């Protein structure tokens, strides 16, 4: 029964967190703090991951296509793979592993130590105080990090193709630009917005739902990450149906 009502409770939680007066003046400092924790601090790991995404994608695409189709298809393959799939999903997974876990652990600890109840008693809306800045920060951070990964990964792929894979920069960029479809770029960003929303909501939802002691906090953390991964994959498929169906 709990499993059946879970989607409803999830949507209700999201509505309670978002559809409230935002009170920008009070929310702003906490939003900045969360943007710093989940966006700026994730920058180095995303940068590192994007370097390897670019390197691997270029080598793999070249291995798959070289000798079968013209060389500029390497640029096409790399750019479309990165824009449509790799950058949004990879970034979302990294952020989910990093932020959903920390958020649910933090909020779970607050829940079991009755800090959230104390906020309610003091007349502070815990959804607006705790959830809104986190969800908003994640929804904003993930697309920005996705863009960073996209540009960095394609730039690294261009570099490795030129230096080691015998594909000139002109040929590579010809493939990138020739087959570029704006829908790929904006579709990837739309995915990222949705993924960010899910990661933020999961982190808060499972943290708020923690009951008991430290064990339940750990369980909530695991649930937040697993649910985020599942929802990212599910949403990715649905977005593929919406944006990239031929």
């Amino acid at each position, binding site marked *: 029964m709990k499993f059946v009502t879970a989607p409803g409770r999830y949507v209700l939680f999201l509505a309670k967190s978002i559809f409230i007066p935002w009170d920008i003046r009070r929310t702003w*400092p906490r939003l900045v703090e969360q*943007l*710093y924790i989940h966006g700026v601090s994730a920058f180095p790991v995303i940068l590192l991951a994007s370097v390897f995404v670019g390197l691997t994608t270029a080598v793999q695409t070249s291995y798959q296509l070289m000798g079968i189709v013209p060389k500029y298809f390497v640029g096409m393959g790399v750019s479309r793979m990165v824009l449509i799939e790799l950058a949004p999903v990879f970034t979302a997974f990294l952020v989910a592993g990093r932020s959903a876990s920390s958020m649910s652990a933090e909020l779970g600890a607050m829940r079991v130590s009755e800090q959230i109840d104390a906020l309610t008693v003091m007349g502070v809306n815990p959804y607006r105080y705790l959830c809104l800045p986190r969800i908003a920060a994640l929804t904003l951070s993930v697309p*920005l990090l996705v*863009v960073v990964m996209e*540009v960095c990964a394609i730039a690294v792929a261009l570099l490795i193709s030129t230096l080691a894979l015998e594909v000139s920069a002109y040929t590579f960029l010809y493939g990138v630009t*020739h087959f570029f479809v*704006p829908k790929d770029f904006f579709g990837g960003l739309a995915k990222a917005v949705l993924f960010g929303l899910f990661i933020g909501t999961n982190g808060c939802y499972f943290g708020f739902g923690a009951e008991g002691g430290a064990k339940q906090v750990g369980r909530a953390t695991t649930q937040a990450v697993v649910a985020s991964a599942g929802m990212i994959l599910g949403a990715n498929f649905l977005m593929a149906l919406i944006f990239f169906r031929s």
Partner: protein
Amino acid sequence: MKRRTRELIVVLFVLVGIGLAVFGFFWFSGRLRTGLRRNVTVYFDNVSGLRVGDPVEVMGIPKGRVAKVRLEGRRVCCQVALDQDVELTQDTRIAIRSVSYLGSDRYLMITLGPGPRAEDGFVFQGVNEALDLEETFLQLDRALNKFNPEELTGSLKQVAEDLMARIQGQLDHFSGQLDKFNSGLAVTGEELEGLSDGLDSLAVLLKGESTMGKLLTSQKLYDEVMKTNRQVQILIEDIKKNPKRYFKISIF
């Protein structure tokens, strides 16, 4: 960290992200170029899937993008953003082509002519040379339908008869050559018979009934010849050692 510093870093992060998004979009779409572009208007009867952003190549070099595609009455008006350094002539040929053999992606191919320079505002009429698989198959189907099977059968019969006549002629010629070869072979057989007789006579000679045969087959004669040979060798050696025994030379 101070609140102000943190705010500054976050704002910077957001600005960098937005900036990268804008830069990335212009970079990936090939719009990141220096220099202004000018618009050229081309009309087509059918663009068969040409889209905004598709590349434009002048003599094989990427020099622009398709900026707008819209329907105007029964024609399609296409705005092409071209680099400033491209000087179009009035007889410029503008064609829609397919990038791949499957015909899914399009580009505009511009071929400059020798005519006078086209001033700004000159309107071009383009042609669609993109590979349309459906149209190609339809044309193939129409061509097949035009075939007359009876006519084709008659032609094939004629060809078969001609072929049979030629083969018969070749067979006759080959048969004549084979007869000639057979007669030559008979003469050669007779000559071989003569040779065989000669060899038989020689064999008889060597068997021992003749003098030569006896000489060749007598063991006693062989032993005697060998004995004589050894004695002659001994004699020669002795002569060499003691020549004075056998030769006495005196001048006075």
